[in-house]
């Protein structure tokens, strides 16, 4: 059970305080409610590029990292389809440096041509390093547009193509900042040996004077129900064939999410899972296979992905996946198996909470989904899942007409 306090500044900035007197480290996590889904389709990759620019200097502080490192701190950030998240840790006695740094870049960025030019190049190298210049790197660049036809989830956080990043202008950057980087579009969590009154004082001093921006109303085109099975086969210069099969499922904030998350564990998390036992150990069709849910804020994907052993026909392998998955829609689950995945998920939550930074992040993410206390309720939500719900969701999700299969075939096989 994570204890916390909450307050909101007059400009709309929400604060969460988690008190932990046992650690000399303080964690600050700031979430801006903007992700790749908020981009327009001809300017993809922008939210992530923008994350890089947030380190290029703010109105009063030429370099973000230097003063933080001088205070003994460290930071990083990530962007996904839904959010952009910044986090730092530093010795608690230097907490004010964290407020100074983060409030200044929320107040105003420096917007330098040089910083934009360099970070465009850095992101292009990131694109090459992670997506283009390594085996299997472009799988998600293929799978997302296969599964989504209207929703912005059809492109990846890194962007559809390198040219979108290369074309970003300083005016685009200014507009993006003005629209999304406002106190009323952010959540700050402070965790460590610090009290709520102390945080209130610092929050008011540093973040209080930042003016609120226009309310950010999100109107995203939603994905229509998929009515036909989709398949894509590509041939690539890789040593082994991979299969990805993705079904549409509910959004993260819905109750059925917990059922599907558990289904993904019992099908394909670890070596005791059904897919591993059947297709790796027994039938020896795959060398590895996993299942997971994307966990997006809007309706997401349930994914099974596996690497085939040499000389296995990929279409037969897909049939084999189907048979294991479909068993859940025809046969009721045994209690022991359900208890196993529940125990695992609940203990994983407990292990995650050992890290102060994880606690700060989880409280922030939960608040962004509607209520920081959601995180404390997670074990209860998972416990409520039963065999009937599993049966129901399996029937709802695992329909062939709802599926998207990518066969990423090794050229020389």
């Amino acid at each position, binding site marked *: 059970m994570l204890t916390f306090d909450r307050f909101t500044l007059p400009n709309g900035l929400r604060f969460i305080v988690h008190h932990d007197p046992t650690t000399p480290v303080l964690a600050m996590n700031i979430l801006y409610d903007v992700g790749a889904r908020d981009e327009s389709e001809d300017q993809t990759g922008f939210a992530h590029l923008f994350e890089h620019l947030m380190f290029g200097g703010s109105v009063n502080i030429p370099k973000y990292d230097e003063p933080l490192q001088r205070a003994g701190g460290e930071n990083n950030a990530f962007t996904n389809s839904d959010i952009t998240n910044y986090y730092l840790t530093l010795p608690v006695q230097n907490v004010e440096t964290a407020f100074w740094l983060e409030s200044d870049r929320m107040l105003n960025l420096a917007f330098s041509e040089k910083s934009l030019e360099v970070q465009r190049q850095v992101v292009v190298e990131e694109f090459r390093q992670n997506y283009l210049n390594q*085996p299997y790197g472009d799988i998600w660049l293929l799978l997302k547009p296969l599964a989504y036809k209207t929703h912005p989830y059809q492109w990846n956080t890194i962007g559809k193509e390198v040219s979108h990043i290369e074309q970003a202008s300083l005016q685009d950057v200014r507009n993006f900042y003005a629209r999304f980087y406002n106190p009323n579009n952010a959540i700050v969590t402070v965790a460590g040996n610090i009290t709520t009154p102390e945080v209130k004082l610092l929050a008011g001093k540093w973040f209080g004077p930042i003016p609120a921006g226009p309310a950010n109303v999100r109107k995203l085109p939603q994905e229509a129900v998929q009515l036909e099975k989709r398949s894509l086969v590509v041939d690539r210069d890789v040593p082994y064939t991979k299969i990805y099969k993705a079904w549409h499922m509910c959004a993260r904030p819905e109750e059925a999410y917990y059922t599907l998350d558990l289904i993904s564990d019992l099908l394909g998390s670890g070596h005791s899972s059904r897919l591993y036992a059947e297709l790796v150990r027994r039938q020896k069709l795959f060398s590895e296979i996993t299942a997971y849910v994307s966990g997006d804020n809007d309706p997401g994907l349930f994914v099974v992905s596996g690497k085939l052993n040499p000389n296995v026909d990929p279409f037969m392998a897909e049939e084999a996946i189907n048979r294991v998955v479909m068993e859940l829609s025809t046969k009721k689950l045994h209690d022991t198996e359900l208890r196993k995945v529940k125990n695992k998920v609940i203990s994983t939550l407990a292990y995650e909470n050992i890290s102060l930074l994880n606690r700060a992040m989880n409280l922030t993410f939960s608040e962004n989904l509607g209520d920081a206390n959601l995180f404390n309720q997670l074990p209860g939500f998972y416990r409520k899942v039963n065999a009937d719900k599993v049966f129901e969701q399996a029937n709802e999700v695992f329909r062939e007409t709802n599926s998207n299969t990518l066969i990423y075939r090794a050229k020389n096989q």
Partner: protein
Amino acid sequence: MNTPDRTTQPPLKQIDSLSIGQPKTIVHSNGLTQHTFESNNHDAVRLDLIFKAGTAMQSKLLAASTTNRMLKEGTTKHSGHHIASRMDYHGAYIDLTTTKDYCWASLFALKKSIPRLLPLLAEMIKEPAFKPADFRILNSQQKQDFVVNSQKPKHMARQLFNEMIFGAETPYGQSATVSDFDKLSRSDLAEFHSRFYNHRNATLILAGAIDESVQKAVNDHFSDEWGSAGIAQTVMQQSVQATGEHWTEKPGSLQSAIQMGKLAMKRNHPDFAGFIMLNTVLGGYFGSRLMSNIREDKGYTYGIYSQIAPFEHDAYFTIATEVGREVTRAALDEIHYEINKLRTEAIPYDELQLVRNYLTGSYLRGLDGPYNQSEKFRSILGIPQGMDYFTQTLQTIQTVTADELLVLAKRYLDPESMLTIVVGEKIS
């Protein structure tokens, strides 16, 4: 409300000296040493059982890591599926790791599950079955991973670097090729296991919620004598380092992977702590000179880092990055420029102070809580000072002068003495 002064950084406070406690050490009746980092604030237990059984000890390539990974795949009494199901049922994890010098099993579990899980862990360690069918699956998985990695420029560079920094024929420099997977047999694993997996060759580290019930379970399952062989013999590592620039062509590669470096001093060397400072300034953190120059000023790369890799019998220093194909030469020139600058100009006071503070904060984070402490302790196993090693290192970090660092840079960072590996497409 007071208006904040946004133009200057709020005053910094000196970080209190770190209080790093030594673990409680006991010796079991069989001679097995146990180090414990106890905490009342947690429900979980971390247990590491470490053997001196790294890749440097194997007489056949791949034997050490495969033996270690096979521990999960079945015992004489229980199948791999049973082990995995039981661990999952108790919400527990087992990680298996092999390095050049050691291998270990780490169990992470809730305190209440420990008495139920330790019998199974003991069985995995003492009586692995190495069944041919399970071995074939694991071996082919590892072979496939190897083949995929062999296509990644970074991995190719790393492997070549390792071979050429230590010498391909030495215990540390040996590296497998794809055909070695076909030469490995289950009897190699059984042999490796019988030589190295015994109580005389092991160390136990516990962290977290260690109470009487946990200690009793440990005593019940690990204080007996098992395995027949004695303590592992010392590895004879006599490194033969190559120098110069070595290109491996990878046609069509959009980026070049660069790895350069040289042999370095081991942890117990008097210059080691100073060298940590030098490494940090050069490429050991996000604000480093290499990162500032090659990423943040030139945009040649997504990231560039340097590090010191200390082992029991030798060590190396290395810089690694992946850069755009067209700027490979320019990036190499900039790396040389930064190394030479470190050898010719004293580090400015301001930068030195920043790095001191950064490193102190980084030790503070790295040593926060019992699980982190136990992990740090494992990384210095064999260093006689124990956790005092970190206090002493921090003292040097706080006091070493710019002039002393200049001397170290001249002594240890001559680019002429370094090995450079580049994997990518050479453009003229």
